[in-house]
């Protein structure tokens, strides 16, 4: 296609969007509403995922207790061995003295029971943070095989439960997102179909004059992209403002302490990309496909 034809196609698409104001406006409203419903759910999903991840992260710590009889050299070797595991995010050594102080704290008023003792009877331990909470069991299994490891402390049941909750939350969110996405695509493509149907006579006239299918199709695709883009932009602005209001309320503790929304700025590109994709791609491709059956004249 020549440059002048490309220019014409874009200009014609823009002009037609403006001249078919009523239809364009109606389409934009419907697209905005569809994307908005999808977007709100997308953000709810992102927040659910984030909350379960945070909860899991808190539980993704294990404590590896060494054999109390190990000497410093053996403990050092054990530390090196533990660090070799690629799932280890970081590690903190708890010396006998620190362990003793911790025990005293735990015993509280009963710490008198420790009088006359020092920490030498306590084992050295390592507090290990795991990168991926889902890998916790395999890390524990591999640590258990290392010589000198006496015991590994971790909340197995809590981690298993949280992992399961997180997995199901993700699956349910994903299914709902796919359903809502399909509904949005269906509504948007039908809106575009109605717009095209209203102008089927125009399409047939163009064919009678001798226009090729693509010459007719492209300005319609440009119109679809413009309408989709405007709808996506309005949806984004509404989402952004609504999310800001909600975030503010959460920060004030209106919905209880400890629950904070994910910062919109951290997912902004993700939201913009999904909105634009739905609006522009469905608008553009939908238009180009919808006119197909009116081209056979």
């Amino acid at each position, binding site marked *: 296609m*020549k440059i*002048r*034809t490309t220019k*014409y196609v874009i200009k014609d698409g823009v002009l*037609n969007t403006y*001249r*078919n104001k009523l239809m364009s406006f109606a389409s934009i409203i419907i697209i905005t509403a569809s994307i908005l419903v999808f977007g709100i759910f997308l953000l709810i999903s992102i927040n659910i995922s984030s909350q379960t991840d945070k909860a899991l992260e808190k539980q993704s710590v294990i404590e590896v207790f060494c054999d109390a009889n190990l000497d410093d050299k053996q403990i050092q070797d054990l530390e090196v061995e533990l660090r070799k595991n690629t799932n280890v995010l970081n590690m903190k050594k708890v010396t006998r003295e620190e362990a003793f102080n911790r025990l005293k704290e735990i015993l509280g008023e009963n710490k008198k029971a420790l009088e006359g003792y020092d920490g030498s009877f306590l084992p050295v331990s390592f507090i290990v943070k795991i990168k991926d909470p889902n890998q916790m069991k395999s890390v524990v299994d591999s640590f258990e095989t290392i010589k000198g490891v006496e015991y590994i402390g971790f909340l197995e049941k809590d981690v298993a439960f949280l992992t399961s909750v997180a997995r199901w939350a993700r699956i349910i969110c994903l299914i709902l997102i796919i359903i809502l996405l399909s509904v949005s695509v269906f509504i948007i493509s039908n809106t575009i179909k109605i717009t095209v149907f209203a*102008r089927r*006579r*125009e399409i047939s*006239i*163009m*064919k*009678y*004059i*001798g*226009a*090729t299918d693509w*010459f007719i199709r492209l300005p319609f695709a440009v119109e679809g992209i413009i309408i989709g883009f405007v709808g996506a932009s309005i949806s984004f602005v509404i989402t952004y403002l609504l999310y800001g209001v909600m975030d503010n309320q959460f920060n004030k503790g209106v919905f209880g302490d400890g629950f904070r929304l994910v910062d919109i700025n951290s997912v902004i590109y993700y939201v913009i990309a999904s909105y634009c994709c739905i609006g522009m791609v469905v608008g553009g491709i939908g238009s180009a496909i919808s006119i197909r059956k009116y081209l056979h*004249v």
Partner: protein
Amino acid sequence: MVKFENVSKKYSNGTEALKGVNLRIGKGDFVFFIGQSGSGKSTLIKLIMKEEETTEGEVIVNGFNVSSMERKEIPFLRRSLGIVFQDFRLLPGKTVYENVAFAMQITEALPKEIRRRVPMVLSLVGLSKKADAFPNQLSGGEQQRVALARAIVNNPYILVADEPTGNLDPETSWGIMKLLDEINQMGTTVIVATHEKSIVDTMKKRVIALDRGVIMRDQEKGLYEDEDTNNKIRN
């Protein structure tokens, strides 16, 4: 320019619109297709512009074998024709200027050429002052003149008009017919399907009379009615 060889057309509802039609139209001819409603004159036009497929026979238009051409070739056939319809078929969202320019834009004509040709043809059909108007702001006659301007802007070899005066009052109809005559005198072959007796009788051009899908008469400088043909039809 146009050749029909043993052309038959049967619609899916069983109607036989044309039966073994043979005809030739040469360069620069002015031809009327006449006949009652259902005689097959509009079907002839539709076959020329490939709006319908032939059931049998061969149609050649401007060197295109219309009967066997592929779908992707149709736009190129139609660009070689100028087509005028009874219901004008203007693009409602485009101005008069844009409607005419559109016919050139689809051929990827240079913008400079479009700016030169469009005002020229609008002037020829007397619509220079209405260039920025939209079709719904024009009278029927004016709309048909826009359709004519659009049909001739690419200098087609053949101009095909299906009942071009069907929706117009007699005075406006005459204006359109005069324009068609002028276009013909510039060398364009003009084919008009009509059932308006006064126009055919006054213009005295070649007349091809059809009845129930059969050519009953092909006469140079013919009239709408002919005693011999009438007798044949009656018998």
